[in-house]
């Protein structure tokens, strides 16, 4: 399909607009995190750093508990991702490939769960966890993150499961394979991209979660990056270098993860939406 010149110019303008909108803020933050303090607050902003220093990163890692926050966040995010997969894959398989009474009703309830304002849950959950004595523990956070990731994860797996031809499954059933074996040997390898999408979704939503982590975690040594980092914002007399370095470090794991599997995630998200 060929486009006219006018359309091409329009496309280029819109493309540059998007590039500026999405990438430029990140570039400014990232490049400025290596600038000397006086250049950061300079009245004439520089596009490329004129100075170079890693003092903000060094300061962040030595003067604050940032490294601890990162470790906590990684523990919570990785555990939440694994548990979400462990629960979502069999559940999605049962919902979209097996027959059982109440299937439709249960699936609707799951979708409804996604729609509830999370702030509604926050208050009673705090009381419940306090009674159980698991306030200020990482497992409490993991539980919450899993519960919030599950509905969307099950929904996302739907289109991937639907794309596996029934014949493959039926052949295995005729050969006498039980559903557990079919799930493990046939379905899981075939829907690997879907599983990757769910894993990224669960990891990112847990890595970025702020509200519950801010209420359920009390001691500084157990804080995750979003909460610990927001503590640093208030703690210091606005030290932009430190904050920009912290922002850089908080984005890094997500960018690395995304560089490897981002394509699967985006296709998983869009394919799920079509069905």
């Amino acid at each position, binding site marked *: *399909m060929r486009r006219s010149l006018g*359309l091409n110019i329009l*496309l280029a303008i819109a*493309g540059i607009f998007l590039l500026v*909108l*999405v990438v430029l*803020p990140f570039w*400014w*933050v990232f490049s400025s995190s290596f600038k000397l303090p006086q250049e950061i*607050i*300079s009245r*004439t*902003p520089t596009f490329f750093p004129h100075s170079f220093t890693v003092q903000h990163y060094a300061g962040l890692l030595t003067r604050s508990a940032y490294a601890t926050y990162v470790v906590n966040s990684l523990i919570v995010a990785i555990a939440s991702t694994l548990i979400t997969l*462990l*629960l979502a894959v*069999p*559940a999605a*398989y*049962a*919902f979209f490939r*097996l*027959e*059982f*009474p109440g*299937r439709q009703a249960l699936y609707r309830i*799951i979708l409804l769960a*996604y*729609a*509830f*304002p999370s*702030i*509604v*849950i*926050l*208050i*009673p*959950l705090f*009381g419940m966890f306090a*009674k159980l004595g698991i306030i200020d523990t990482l497992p409490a956070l993991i*539980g919450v993150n*899993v*519960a919030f990731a*599950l509905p969307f994860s*099950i929904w996302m797996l739907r289109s991937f499961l639907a794309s596996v031809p029934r014949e493959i499954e039926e052949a295995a059933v005729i050969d006498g394979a*039980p*559903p557990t074996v079919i799930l493990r040997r046939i379905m899981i390898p075939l829907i690997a991209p879907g599983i990757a999408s769910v894993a990224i979704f669960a990891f990112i939503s847990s890595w*970025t979660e702020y509200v519950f982590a801010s209420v359920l975690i009390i001691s500084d040594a157990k804080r995750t990056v*979003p909460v610990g*980092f927001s503590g640093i*914002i208030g703690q210091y007399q606005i030290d*932009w270098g430190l*904050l920009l370095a912290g*922002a850089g470090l*908080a*984005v890094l794991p997500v960018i690395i993860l*995304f560089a490897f599997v981002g394509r699967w995630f*985006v296709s998983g*998200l869009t394919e799920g*939406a*079509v069905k």
Partner: protein
Amino acid sequence: MRNPTLLAFVFVAPAMSVLLLILGWPLVSAIILSLQDVRSVGSPGAWIGLDNYAKLLADPSLWRATGMSIAWVAANAVLQTALAMIAALVLSQNFPGVRIARTWIILTWIVPTVVVVIIWRWLFSTSGGMINPLIVQSGLSARPIGFFSTPWMAFATLVFINSWRWFPFVTLMLLAGMTRIPGDLYEAARIDGASAWKRFSRITWPLLKPTLGVLSVVGTLLSFNVFDIIWLMTAGGPAGGTRTLPVLIYETAFKGYRLSEAATMSVIATVLLLTFALLTVRSLDRQEERE
């Protein structure tokens, strides 16, 4: 385990029990809490029936926050849809690098909100920052603009920041909808000599309506729930100019130590949201039947 029905239940049960325990039970507790008078966590409360509801429904601050939430949802819907439509139209074209762009457009959505807050607090800062020096240098304004200084400015700035974070999500949904539109339609329109604008307004837009309908429900629920960006950026201020319902609920529960009142507000909010969602879904269904 040869019984398929039993096995299906075994597969579903673990996920369902987590949801019941962590989402279902607290929801029931919220309703119980709203009928009691509990102030801080763990303290016992007397049953007071619907007193909390009567008190709060007569409280102007609840209605002010509800109005703020409606404005917030509407403003975000408009800006996000506009940005996402531009992005989806660009990304549905073929040009070098489009595959990379389709993946990385999501960048703003996958970073922690606290990072979003740092980025924009700094870019919009009145001392240093990036936007204000550019504005002053180019002569658009003699003095730096206080993007968070008045209630109205803070609200508009927050809508922009939140839409910046969420529009890629909407973009991907629109792109998914666009791939469902048959290519022959555009081919036929081209042969008939239809302009690019005609092709958009007569083919793309009408055929995207189902997608936009679904998005209006999902987007409303997602926007309504936004709390962390507002809290970290302005904490509901200045002068309550950004105090949406979730912010008011959080303040009431964890700053004012009036748990039962906060629970009551969240039950009211849930009823409002569910009513909206059900009405919209029903009218969408009816529209589909008519077409």
